[in-house]
């Protein structure tokens, strides 16, 4: 049904546009708290784009980890350090040129890859392998990629213990 596909396309392009606007806001907004919220919105739109191309698991994990976890912590920090949320705090640094160079390199690197994939959206051909399910993901994590998985597990465990050690109050002896 071409009409529906057109509508979906409109929705996805709208999502992308909102994401770009919010991303610009996250960089340029003078208030750190607003910038943090804009960043959260960018992450939600990215999750929406993931959902629209069938990567539901990725989209949901994106929201759960980044919006629910990381962004909450960032905003929490801004709120806790009361001064950071104030209006007279400088929210930008003077590294625009370096950022532009880095962004240019990134575009040069990712651009050819994007051009290689051809017209969007990609059609699912009959010969193409089916989309990866959560089960496949779990299986491959537990078989083929078990070593990096375990290393990450140990790393996170160490970080967790470190956090507890830092946060622990010194007992009066």
């Amino acid at each position, binding site marked *: *049904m071409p*009409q*529906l596909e057109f509508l979906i396309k409109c929705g996805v392009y709208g999502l992308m546009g909102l994401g770009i606007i919010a991303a610009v806001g996250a960089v340029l907004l003078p208030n750190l*708290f*607003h910038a943090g*919220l804009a960043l*959260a919105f960018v992450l*939600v739109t990215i999750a929406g784009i993931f959902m629209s191309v069938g990567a*539901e*698991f990725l989209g*949901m*994990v994106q*929201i*759960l980890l980044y*919006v*629910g*976890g990381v*962004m*909450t912590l960032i*905003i*929490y920090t801004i*709120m*806790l350090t009361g001064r950071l*949320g104030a209006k007279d705090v400088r929210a930008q640094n003077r590294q625009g040129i370096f950022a532009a160079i880095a962004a240019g390199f990134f575009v040069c690197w990712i651009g050819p890859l994007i051009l290689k994939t051809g017209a969007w959206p990609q059609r699912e051909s009959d010969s193409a392998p089916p989309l990866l*399910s*959560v*089960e496949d993901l779990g299986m491959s994590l537990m078989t083929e990629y078990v070593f990096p998985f375990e290393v990450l597990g140990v790393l996170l465990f160490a970080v967790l213990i470190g956090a507890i050690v830092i946060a622990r109050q010194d007992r009066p002896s």
Partner: protein
Amino acid sequence: MDQMFVNIKAALVGLSDKVFPDWVGVLVSIAVSIVAIALLGPLIMMYLTLIERKVVARMQNRIGPNRVGKYGLLQPLADGVKMLIKEDIVPRNADKVLHLLAPILIVAPALLVFAVLPFGRNMTAVDLNVGILFFAAISSIGTIGIFMAAWGSNNKFSVLGGMRSVAQMISYEIPMVMSVVPVLLAVGSLSTNAIVEAQADWHWFVFTPWGFLGCVIFFLCGVAECNRSPFDLAEAESEIIAGFHTEYSGMKFALFYMAEFMSAFTISGMTTTLFLGGWQGPLLPSWLWFFLKTYGLIFIMLWFRATLPRLRVDQLMALAWKFLLPLSLVNIVATCIWHFLSDEAFFTPAAFLVPLALLVFSYWGLMKLNQPYMPEKRVYPLVD
């Protein structure tokens, strides 16, 4: 009777197919689901307020609202009208945009979660294959709305309430997600429909040792997630004058309540889906079973509210991190043992007793370890 709502929807779509081209039918089908959910959420919220006031009143030996309509049945409508015609006050130094956006951002996730609740056989609005993950992810967005409300109000009490609320929501989210893992292990799918289907023939997960524990942990964490008493530190009226929604009035204030009541409903609905067999049940239509079980759980929530005093902050955190989290981790191990001992059967004595013993032992151990320091009883020799 069982498929009544499904048939109504099919009839509506069929009607549009006769008049319009087929792609309109798809849109109509989507619109019907959206309208049904968008109406159901506020409707449930309206009558939950009445139920809450009535039940709590009865428990406190009062009668509760009984003036508007028979048994006070029109009270929610009267409240709604009152809320809508109230003056909308925005503090002068508030962040106007955030102050306006916050209630919307809190209600939207609470309503979105309804999309994956299986209300009855074939009655899931969107059968996502990552349904449970969707539930966890979307309900975690609510914290950002609370932040916006707290910060945008520019009020110390609001910020305090917001911080309390967020600390609480982050802490309780972890045992909550961990207590769902056993169900996912047993079913092998994240889809809410598949989870309900797996509990056919009275194989409700609550009847297994790990399911019972998971159910209790999930429900408790859910009560904490939607800031209801006894975990309502974030909105403690006596300490911080209702916290993050202090500076709201009129319909904006009502939207916070709407979000809270809708998430109370979705938490109960999710507990029903995950552990109490969802819409499975004999004789009655499936959707009636779902609502019966869900309202049973909501009644327990109201019972909590009427009987339990509010927790202290340290008690709240200790409960989540030192008790519920280790217990839910042990629960995952117990589920694995159950899975390998039971050998595809739902009930075998060995598969029942070994996890039960493990869970009882770890419960006892955690209780021992968590025992608060009790000073020895003072003796006053001269008094006696």
